[in-house]
């Protein structure tokens, strides 16, 4: 049960900063037997759509198959490494997800996200740098898109999980 006094109507700016600046979040999908399967993921917050975009290679499809069977997911933002933020909150986004069928390889419409990855993860630039690596790494650029729409957002100031979280239940965030 969430303490009623901790329910808020608006998403504070420090929570959106976390969405923009954290390098990874921990994305949980539900396996067939109901076990949450959690792996670090690059989150792309799209405030104009009020949802996150996650992409995954067609070689690593576990989360896509899990989402198609059970759309209930969560994104936990709990590791501020490299974010540059001072004392950010931890944020948990409980959400409904949709996975697209189309395999995307084009950069059209994803230029901003690609620039962000190349800026934040310079070592990933090597994947497309020569013919041999392009041959071995082409699967990395065959992507499936997952849209994650927040249903409930909880946050713990100073990442102190011993305190009751603040909560927002958005119709539409952003």
């Amino acid at each position, binding site marked *: 049960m969430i303490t009623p006094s901790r329910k808020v109507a608006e998403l504070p700016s420090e929570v959106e900063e976390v969405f923009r600046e954290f390098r990874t979040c921990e994305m949980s999908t539900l396996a067939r037997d109901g*076990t949450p399967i959690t792996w670090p993921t690059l989150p792309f917050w799209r405030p104009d759509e009020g949802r996150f975009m996650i992409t995954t290679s067609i070689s690593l499809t576990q989360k896509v198959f899990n989402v198609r069977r059970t759309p209930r997911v969560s994104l936990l933002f709990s590791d501020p490494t490299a974010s540059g933020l001072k004392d950010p909150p931890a944020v948990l986004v409980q959400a409904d997800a949709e996975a697209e069928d189309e395999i995307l390889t084009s950069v059209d419409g994803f230029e901003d996200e690609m620039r962000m990855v190349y800026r934040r*993860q310079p070592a990933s630039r090597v994947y497309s740098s020569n013919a041999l690596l392009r041959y071995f790494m082409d*699967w990395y650029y065959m992507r499936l898109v997952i849209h994650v729409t927040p249903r409930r957002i909880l946050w713990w100031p100073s990442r102190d999980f011993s305190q009751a979280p603040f909560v927002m239940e958005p119709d539409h965030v952003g």
Partner: protein
Amino acid sequence: MWDDITKYLPDFDSAVLTGVDSEGYPFGVRCWPHPDAAAEDVLRVQLPADTLVQPGPASLLCHKHDENLWNLKSFLVRGALSRDERGWSFEPLRFIPGAGIGGLPAMARFFIGSRRNARRYLKKRGLARPRIPWGDINAVKEQVISSERVNSFR
């Protein structure tokens, strides 16, 4: 499996424990798991008194990266979360290595396996291997490198 957990767990400051709440959504928190002194092959975890996590299927993720989102290291343990008079405990059922676990052989298996997985995914759907627009990708990459060069001279 227990040997893997006790070998790699000390490499991480904390872990993400994810269970399921009463509405069936995953619910994750950071915690500091440690072996239960009174039980074999069980981890004890401290969760807030008012946590929304329910006993049942759960997983424990440890992961880290450096300031350049590199030197990735991770593993996941599938298991079960339960509660008794001493608090919460996590019973590991399966250790799943992630990035940076297992050295070069594991890395080679990952990259070769990923290429094979892609081939299988496409074959199952009767799809040809898509052409990757390397020129467009490298153009975006060059934009980033150029802007970094400009910024470094300012």
